[in-house]
């Protein structure tokens, strides 16, 4: 009954290292549904980040197709990929990736800035989101003045600012202590309850427990895809 928001079909990815071709993904096919909360797991080097980059339109598959919404991303040029990243996707990185010279508010506004929204509109949304992740009192602080957990919450607010179709989080708690990590996961639970589509890479079974669908990769293939109830 839930609609498909994104789907990869028989996706492969091969890196050329000099003359050596290294195939990282060997034909991955997954459908992502509206409101899914997915955790992607697997041993180091199995291709999780590579897949996330493709899902995030930061990279394109060597073969296979990737539909985001109703759009085939394999046909897109660089500008269109940029546009779809800005409009449809939210990124949360392991190392937060905030821009150091910008304030909390400006970091949250950044996707809206590239979408060409007006200043007032951006400011309103960014302020709302900062409040929502519990940083309403830190609007004009710079990233280095914040703890890791706080920075990651800014990153979450930033990922939400353009109301994306999918939120992609590659090991979002990897750099955090368990308490800060728990706060992040609490936010994810909230987002899930609000019906957002979340895809999270994690190494921790404990974290994966909280998601509603677990996908395991091994050597660039889908090993298992379990929906928990």
């Amino acid at each position, binding site marked *: 009954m839930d609609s498909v928001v994104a789907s990869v079909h028989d996706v492969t990815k091969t890196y050329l290292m000099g003359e050596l071709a290294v195939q990282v993904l060997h034909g991955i096919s997954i459908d992502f549904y509206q409101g899914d909360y997915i955790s992607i797991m697997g041993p180091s080097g199995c291709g999780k980040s590579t897949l996330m980059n493709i899902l995030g339109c*930061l990279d394109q598959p060597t073969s296979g197709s990737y539909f985001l919404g109703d759009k085939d991303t394999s046909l897109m040029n660089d500008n269109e990929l940029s546009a779809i*990243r*800005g*409009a449809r996707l939210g990124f949360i*990185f392991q190392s937060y*990736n905030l821009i150091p010279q910008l304030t909390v508010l400006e970091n949250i506004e950044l996707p809206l800035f*590239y979408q060409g929204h007006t200043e007032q509109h951006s400011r309103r949304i960014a302020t709302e989101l900062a409040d929502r992740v519990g940083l309403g009192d830190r609007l004009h602080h710079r990233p280095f003045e914040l703890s890791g957990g706080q920075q990651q919450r800014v990153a979450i607010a930033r990922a939400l600012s353009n109301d994306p179709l999918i939120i992609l989080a590659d090991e979002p708690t990897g750099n955090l202590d368990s308490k800060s990590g728990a706060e992040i996961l609490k936010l994810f639970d909230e987002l899930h309850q609000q019906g957002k589509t979340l895809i999270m890479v994690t190494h921790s079974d404990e974290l994966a427990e909280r998601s509603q669908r677990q996908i395991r990769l091994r050597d660039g293939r889908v090993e298992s895809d379990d929906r928990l109830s």
Partner: protein
Amino acid sequence: MTDSVNHATAASALQRLTQHLRPVYWTRLRKTAEVGIKSIQAHGLRSLLTVLGIVIGVAAVISMLAVSEGASFEAQQQFRALGSNNIIIKSVKPASMEASGGSNMRPQAISYGLTYEDILTIQQTIPGISNVIPSRIIKKDVRHLGRDISTDVVGTTVDYPISRNYNLRSGRFFSADEMLAQRNVAVISDEVASALFPMTNPLGESIRIDGNYYNIVGVMEPEAYSNLGRSQAGSSNAAPTRIFIPLSAARYRFGETLVRQAASGVEMETVELHEAIIQVEDQDQVEAVGQIIEQILERRHRRVDYAVEVPLALIRQAEESALRDQIVAGAIAGISLLVGGIGIMNIMLASVTERTREIGIRRALGARKQDIVQQFLIEAVILSGVGGLIGVVIGILIPVVISLFWGMTTIVTITAPLLAFSISALIGVVFGIYPSIRAANMDPVEALRHA
């Protein structure tokens, strides 16, 4: 039919688009500029050192041009005061005579210089000459009551003041009638007036030269430039103190042979005319007439005991030398701006490398390549523009300081700072392009993985 409909919808769509984009576009530009300023501020000293080349280049060019412009203006002003339609011919004592005069035991008159015959020939053979104003210049002591002053007594014709744009302060110049009648009337320069008549009005008073009294009918205004030709009868650099009397009177009173007390004994020299101003009707003909005069005098004189000065040619020379200065300034500007530009490129490349991760983040959040190009270009332009601005300020201050401390005339034109600033901004664009494109072409995944 369908064509026009399509046209209309396209136009309205475009209008809608621009309506929506305009304010956003400017906001974006402003915000991008803000980011640029922030990252420049983050490396204050480094940025300052980077733009130093541009600062020095711009400042050097503006101040060089100001000095050259000032010098050329002054020169032109001087030559223009001599009259751009005038040709001035002068008697010059040939160097060979100077030596022979000293070894004699018996004084013997030496004669040289321009003659009435010369002037007449010139006036009669060359068409387009509107007026000739000959003068004799004799060094004399002038007395009034207890005071006396050594001055150039200039015997000339009534048109002298007009030919040189030299105005009267009070009274009048002597008249044609007085000229004809060889009257003892005098017009004195402002300097003579203040030396001989510090308290009283000189008009109507008499001065004595060699036992003859001359009635003062006019006082000239002070000279803005000492451009009335250097004294022929000795003093070369003294303040231009002058008395003008009718040429006819000068001839009658002083004769043509002047006796002078020199170190070796008495020296006598015969000079008919010391100077003549030849006015040419058409300014375009001045230089040609000057050449013809030169030829005529060459034919008529055995020695070069004359000089021909063409103020217009001197104006041209001043203009040419200003142009030369401008070319030199331009070359210096070019080199220092090139160096400055390379500095900017260098620093922008460093900045791009340092901010690789930021570029990756921006790309992930929806920045297109052109957004990244724009960001780094704006930063480069701000950098070079600020350098240019500092350069303009310094470049305007330096001529002021030069004027204050050395009394040189300097002129800062509007174009020099404007041009220098625009070029420096352009340098930012030109040398910012490569680093910006390099930034934009980074692979987002690679950039995000960058430490």
